[in-house]
C-alpha cells in the first residue's frame, strides 16, 4: 500500500461515487499534501475544503476533504505550487483562508455587490476596487509590459504582466477572473437538467466535454446509467469537438507565426466539420446536446452521413497539414519556442495533430457502429455525491457535485486551465517578449472555464 493510501485509509468516508470522499483531520490533510501525489483540483463548500488527488504509486483517485478550523485550512501551495490559484479562488468565493498559503485575490476584483458569494453569509462589498497586484520590479533597469484584459486578436479576456530585461522576459505573471460570471451561484439550488445549461457555457470550445463531465457526475451521484445510444453519441460528439478545437488551436498558432496556408487549411476543415455538426446535432458547437441522464435529442441520420464525408475528407487532408507543420518554416519557427517540461511549441503541435488523427479514426468507427435504443433516462429526485470526468482538447475536465433531493447543493467544475496557466507563466519566463503570443497560443490557454 502506498504512503498516501495509508494516510487516508483510517479516515471516515462519505459516500461519493465512483470514488468515496475521505474526511480527513487537519493533521492527515497536511500529511497527505506532503506526499508526492498529483493535485487535480481543489475547491470548497460552505463548511469544508475539498481536494482531488491522483496517487501515482497506486494509480488511485483520492477525493479528500477537511473541515474548516476558525476559517482556516492547511495550505496546499507550499508543496503543490499549482495550488496557488485554487487557494485564491477558494478565498474569493467561500472566504476560507489557506494557513501558510496564498492569500491574494483572484476572481474578486472588488466590483461585485458583495464578497464571498458562496459563503453561508456573503460579506459586504469591499470599500475600494482591488486592482490586480503584481510583484514589484526588482531593479530599475527592468520594465513591465501589461497585456490585457482586452488582448490582441479575437480571444479571451485575461491579463498578463511581463517583466522585461530588454526584450527578454524575466518573469510572467497572470491575473484572471475578468470573465467571472458567477456560474456556481447560478447552478446552485437548480435541478441538474437546468444547471446543465451553465455547465455547457463554461467554455465554448469544450462545451461537450464540460457537459459530459457534469452529466457523469450527476449520474454517479444518483447511481443511474445513461443508455447505450446516449453513451455512443456522447463519445462521438466528444471526439468531434476535440478535432474542431485542435484544428482551431493549430490554425491560431499557424496564424501567429505567419503561416497562412496552414492556418487556412485548418480553418476550412474546421468550418466544414462545424457545418456537419449543425446538420447532425442541430448546433455548430453541440451546446446543450448532452444532458444529465443521456442526450437531449437524437442525431439526424442525413447529418451523420454528411459527417462521415467530412471526416473522410479530413483524413485525406491530415497528411498535408502535418507536412506543413512538420517541415519548412513553420517547424523552424515553432522549435524551441516556450519550452516547458522538455516540450516546445512544435511538439505541442505534433501532439495536437496526433490527437486529430486518433479522434478522426475513432469517430469514423463510432459512426459506423452507433447502438440503437432510448436517448435518456429519467433522473430520480434523490440525494448523493458524484464525480465525473471527460477529456477535452485542452486536458481533463472534472466535475463534482452534491445533490440534495434532486437539487444541486454544491458543485465545482475543474477546467484544464487551472493546470495550464501556471505552466504558461513558467514557459514565458526567459523567452523573448515578441514570442509571448505564440507561446500562449501553443499552450491553448482556456480562460472562461477557469474563471467560473
Amino acid at each position, binding site marked *: 500500500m502506498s504512503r498516501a493510501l495509508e494516510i487516508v485509509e483510517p479516515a471516515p468516508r462519505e459516500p461519493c461515487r465512483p470514488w468515496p470522499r475521505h474526511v480527513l483531520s487537519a493533521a492527515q490533510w497536511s500529511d497527505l499534501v506532503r506526499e508526492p501525489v498529483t493535485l487535480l483540483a481543489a475547491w470548497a463548500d460552505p463548511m469544508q475544503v475539498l481536494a482531488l488527488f491522483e496517487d501515482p504509486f497506486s494509480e488511485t483517485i483520492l477525493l479528500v476533504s477537511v473541515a474548516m478550523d476558525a476559517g482556516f485550512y492547511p495550505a496546499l501551495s507550499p508543496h503543490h505550487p499549482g495550488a496557488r490559484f485554487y487557494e485564491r479562488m477558494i478565498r474569493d468565493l467561500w472566504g476560507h483562508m489557506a494557513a501558510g498559503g496564498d492569500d491574494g485575490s483572484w476572481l474578486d476584483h472588488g466590483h*461585485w455587490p458583495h464578497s464571498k458569494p458562496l459563503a453561508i453569509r456573503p460579506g459586504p462589498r469591499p470599500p475600494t476596487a482591488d486592482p490586480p497586484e503584481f510583484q514589484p520590479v526588482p531593479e530599475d533597469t527592468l520594465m513591465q509590459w501589461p497585456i490585457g484584459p482586452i488582448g490582441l486578436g479575437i480571444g479571451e479576456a485575461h491579463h498578463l504582466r511581463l517583466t522585461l530585461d530588454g526584450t527578454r522576459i524575466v518573469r510572467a505573471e497572470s491575473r484572471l477572473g475578468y470573465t467571472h460570471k458567477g456560474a456556481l451561484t447560478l447552478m446552485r439550488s437548480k435541478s441538474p437538467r437546468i444547471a446543465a445549461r451553465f455547465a455547457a457555457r463554461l467554455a465554448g470550445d469544450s462545451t461537450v466535454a464540460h457537459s459530459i463531465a457534469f452529466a457523469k457526475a450527476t449520474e454517479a451521484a444518483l447511481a443511474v446509467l445513461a443508455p447505450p445510444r446516449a453513451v455512443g453519441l456522447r463519445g462521438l460528439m466528444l471526439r468531434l469537438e476535440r478535432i474542431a478545437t485542435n484544428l482551431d488551436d493549430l490554425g491560431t498558432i499557424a496564424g501567429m507565426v505567419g503561416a497562412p496556408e496552414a492556418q487556412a487549411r485548418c480553418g476550412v476543415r*474546421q468550418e466544414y466539420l462545424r457545418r456537419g455538426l449543425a446538420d447532425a446535432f442541430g448546433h455548430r458547437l453541440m451546446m446543450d446536446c448532452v444532458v444529465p441522464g443521456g442526450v437531449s435529442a437524437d442525431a439526424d441520420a442525413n447529418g451523420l452521413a454528411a459527417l462521415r464525408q467530412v471526416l473522410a475528407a479530413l483524413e485525406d487532408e491530415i497528411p498535408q497539414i502535418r507536412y506543413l507543420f512538420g517541415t519548412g518554416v513553420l517547424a523552424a519557427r515553432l522549435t524551441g519556442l516556450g519550452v516547458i517540461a522538455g516540450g516546445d511549441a512544435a511538439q505541442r503541435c505534433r501532439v495536437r495533430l496526433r490527437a486529430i488523427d486518433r479522434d478522426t479514426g475513432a469517430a469514423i468507427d463510432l459512426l459506423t457502429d452507433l447502438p440503437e435504443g432510448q436517448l435518456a433516462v429519467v433522473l430520480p429526485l434523490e440525494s448523493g455525491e458524484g464525480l465525473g470526468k471527460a477529456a477535452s482538447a485542452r486536458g481533463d475536465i472534472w466535475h463534482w457535485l452534491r445533490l440534495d433531493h434532486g437539487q444541486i447543493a454544491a458543485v465545482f467544475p475543474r477546467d484544464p486551465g487551472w493546470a495550464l496557466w501556471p505552466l504558461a507563466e513558467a514557459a514565458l519566463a526567459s523567452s523573448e517578449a515578441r514570442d509571448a503570443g505564440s507561446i500562449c497560443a501553443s499552450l491553448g490557454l482556456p480562460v472562461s472555464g477557469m474563471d467560473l
Partner: protein
Amino acid sequence: MLKPTARRTTLPPAEPAEPVDTETVALLADRLRAASQARLGHELAIRHVNTGSCNGCELEIRALTGVVYNLTRFGLHFVDSPRHADVLLVTGPLTRNLRQALEQAWDATPEPKWVVALGDCAVDGGVFKGSYAVMDGTSNAIQVDLTISGCPPSPARILSGLRALLEANSP
C-alpha cells in the same frame, strides 16, 4: 515520421454570401440620419471586445476571418487597437470585472463609432442574466447600435449583420 505528400489539395474559394437584409440596412440608415452621424464609408475597421464570453462567439468570429467567409472581400477587417476602429464588436454578458475595460475601449474609439452586441450574452446577459457578477449585456454600460442574437450566432448571421452596417454607412 514526416514525409512530403505527393497529392496537394487546393484551398476552396470564398463562398458567395447571402444578400444583405434590406430591412436592417434601412433601420440602421434611419438611425444614422437621426443622429446626423457622418458615414464611415465603404470600409469598416472592427475591434473585438470580450466582456466575459465563454469563447463560443470568438470561435465563430474567428471562422469569419478564414478563407470560407473571407471577411476582407467585403471591406471588413479586424484591428488590434480601439483607436484604429470604427466598430466595437462586443461579446459576453459584460462581467462587472470587465466594465471598466469596455468603457476604456469605447472612450479610445474615435467618433463616429458603432457598437455591435454579438451573441445572446452581449444582448441581455443571456443565461447569465441576473448573476451578481454580470451587468446583463453591453447596453448597460454603453449605447448599442446593432444586436446579433444567437448562442453563439453562426458566422453567416454575424456576416449578414456586419454587412448591413457597412451598407448603411456607404455614401
